[in-house]
C-alpha cells in the first residue's frame, strides 16, 4: 500500500508539475500581480490593491470589451448550437450526397483560424469579395464590412460560427447514432409527428450532448480571438475588442502587465460564472440513460 502511494505520486508528478507551472501557478501569480501597479520608468511597481480596480472601473474600453464579449457569446452560443444540431439531424438520415454534405459542413473546422480569417477577409473585401459581387446589383456594393462599427462585430461573429458549427455537429451526430431505432418505430406507430418525436424523444435524450456543446462553445466564445487579431485588431474604434483581445493588447502592446493581470482575473471569473450557470440550469434537465 505504501509502495503504491509512492509509485502513484512518482507517475503523476512530472505531468502535474508541468501542468501546474503553466496553469495553477500563473493563476496565483496573476492574482498577486493584479494587486500591484505596473512599473514604469521613475515609478517602480508598488502594492496598491485598489489601484488597478479603480482603473478598471473607469476604463471605457474594458466595459466595451465586456459588452462586445457578451454579444459575441450571446450570438455564437445559441446559433452554433442550433446550426450544429440542425446539421446533425439532416445528415443523420440517408439521402443522395450525404457524405459530401457532411464534408462541406465539417471542413471549416480543420482549417486554422488564420486561414479562415484570410478567406473571409477576401470574401468580405469591398469591391473584390463575393459578398459585394452578390449585393452590387441591389445597389448595396462597396460596403466595408470590417471597417464600420455597425458591421464589424457581426462579421467577426459569422466567421466564428462558420468555424465552430461543423465541429459540434459531430458530437450531435454521434449522439443521434447511438439512439435506439425502436424509439422512432414506436413513435411512428403512435402516429406522432416528426416535430413531436423530436421534442418529446430526441431533444431530451440529447441533453447531455447539449450541455457538453454549450459549455465548450461558451469557453470558445471567450477564447476565439485569432480572427480579430488578423482582421480588425479590435477596431474600428474598439468595436471588435473582446476581453481576451484586450488582455493581449494591454499585456503585449502597452506592456501594462499588472493591469492585464486584473483583466485576466475578470475573464477567469466570468468563465467560472458561465460554467456554473450552465451546470445549474442544464444539469437538472439532463436525463442520463
Amino acid at each position, binding site marked *: 500500500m505504501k509502495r503504491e502511494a509512492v*509509485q502513484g505520486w512518482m507517475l*503523476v508528478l512530472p505531468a502535474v508539475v*508541468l501542468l501546474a507551472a503553466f496553469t495553477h501557478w500563473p493563476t496565483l501569480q496573476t492574482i498577486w500581480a493584479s494587486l500591484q501597479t505596473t512599473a514604469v520608468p521613475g515609478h517602480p511597481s508598488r502594492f496598491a490593491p485598489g489601484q488597478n480596480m479603480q482603473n478598471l472601473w473607469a476604463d471605457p474600453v474594458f466595459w466595451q470589451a465586456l459588452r462586445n464579449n457578451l454579444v459575441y457569446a450571446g450570438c455564437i452560443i445559441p446559433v452554433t448550437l442550433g446550426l450544429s444540431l440542425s446539421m446533425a439531424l439532416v445528415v443523420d438520415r440517408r439521402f443522395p450526397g450525404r457524405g459530401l454534405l457532411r464534408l462541406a459542413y465539417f471542413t471549416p473546422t480543420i482549417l486554422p483560424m488564420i486561414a479562415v480569417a484570410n478567406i473571409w477577409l477576401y470574401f468580405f473585401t469591398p469591391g473584390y*469579395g463575393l459578398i459585394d459581387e452578390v449585393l452590387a446589383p441591389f445597389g448595396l456594393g462597396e460596403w466595408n464590412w470590417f471597417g464600420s462599427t455597425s458591421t464589424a462585430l457581426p462579421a467577426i461573429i459569422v466567421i466564428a460560427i462558420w468555424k465552430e458549427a461543423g465541429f459540434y455537429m459531430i458530437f450531435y451526430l454521434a449522439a443521434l447514432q447511438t439512439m435506439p431505432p425502436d424509439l*422512432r418505430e414506436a413513435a411512428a406507430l403512435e402516429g406522432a409527428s416528426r416535430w413531436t418525436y423530436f421534442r418529446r424523444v430526441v431533444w431530451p435524450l440529447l441533453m447531455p450532448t447539449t450541455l457538453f456543446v454549450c459549455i465548450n462553445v461558451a469557453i470558445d466564445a471567450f477564447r476565439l480571438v485569432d480572427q480579430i*487579431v488578423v482582421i480588425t485588431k479590435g477596431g474600428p474604434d474598439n468595436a471588435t475588442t473582446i476581453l481576451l483581445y484586450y488582455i*493581449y493588447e494591454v499585456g503585449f502592446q502597452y506592456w501594462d502587465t499588472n493591469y492585464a493581470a486584473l483583466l485576466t482575473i475578470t475573464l477567469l471569473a466570468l*468563465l467560472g460564472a458561465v460554467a456554473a450557470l450552465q451546470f445549474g440550469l442544464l444539469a437538472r434537465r439532463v436525463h442520463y440513460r
Partner: protein
Amino acid sequence: MSMSATVATLPLSRGLAGQAGRWIEIIGAWLLGVLWILPLLWAIWSAIHPADVQAGFNLFAPLTLQNFAAAWAAAPLDRYMANTIMLVSMVLVAQFVLCTPAAFAFARLRFPGRDTLFAVVLLQLMVTPDLLMVENYQTIGHLGLVDSLPGIALPYLGSAFGIFLLRQTFRTIPQELDDAARLEGLGLLARIWRLYVPLARPTYIAYGLVLVSFHWNNFLWPLVITNSVGVRPITVGLAIFSTNDQGINWSIITAATLISTAPLVVAFLLFQRQFVQSFMRAGIK
C-alpha cells in the same frame, strides 16, 4: 445493422405532405452546404486565377498556378511549415510520455490525495494556458526560452485533456488482465507499456489527431512568444505574410493560405473517417 438502418430511415409521417417536407429539408440542407463551402471555393477560385481577373467572377478566366509559385517565393513558407512540424511532433511525443503514466496512476493506483489532485488537474480544461499568456510569457522569459520552439511548446506539455481521456480509457481495461500481467512478473512500467498502451490504441489515435490539429492551428500564444523566421509556426508566418508583405494582392495571399492549410486538409481527406470518429471519441468520453 441493416435492419436497424432501414427502420431508422422510415419517414415518420408518410404521405405526400411528408414527402414534400422531406424534400424541402434536403434542398435546404444542400443550400446551407453550398453556402457553407462557398468562402473556401471562392478562395480556391481566386488562387488559381491571375490577379488581373480577380474583380468580377468569370467562369472562363484562364487558370494558373503562378500565384502558388509567387507565394512560395515571397515568404519562407517551407521554413514555417518545418517549424510547425517540429513543434507538433515535440508536443505530441512529450504529451504522450507525460500523460500516459499520470493517467495510469489516476486510473489504477491508490494514493493519498489522488482524487483532489485529479480535480485540480481538470481545472485546466477551462483555465487554458492561452488565457494566462501574460504570466506565462514572463515564466518563459525567466527560463530564457522566448522565441524558441520549446518556449512555444512548454505551457501545453502537461495536458488535463490528455490525462482525462487516457484515464477514462484505462479504467475500461479489465483489472483481471492487469492482475494476470502482474502474476507473470511484469513490473509497473512494463504493464503500462505492454498492456495499457496497446489496448488504448484507438484513444491514442483520437487524442493524437485532436492534438495535431489543435497545435497546427494554434496562433495567439505562438504569436506573442516568437519573433523570428526560424521559430515562427505556419499560422504566425501566414498572418505576418498576409498583413505586412503583400499589400492587397489577394491571389497570392489566398494561394499562401491554401498552401499552409494543405497538409492538414490532405491528411483530413485521407483519414476522414478516423478524424471524425476521433473527434467524437475525444469529446464523449
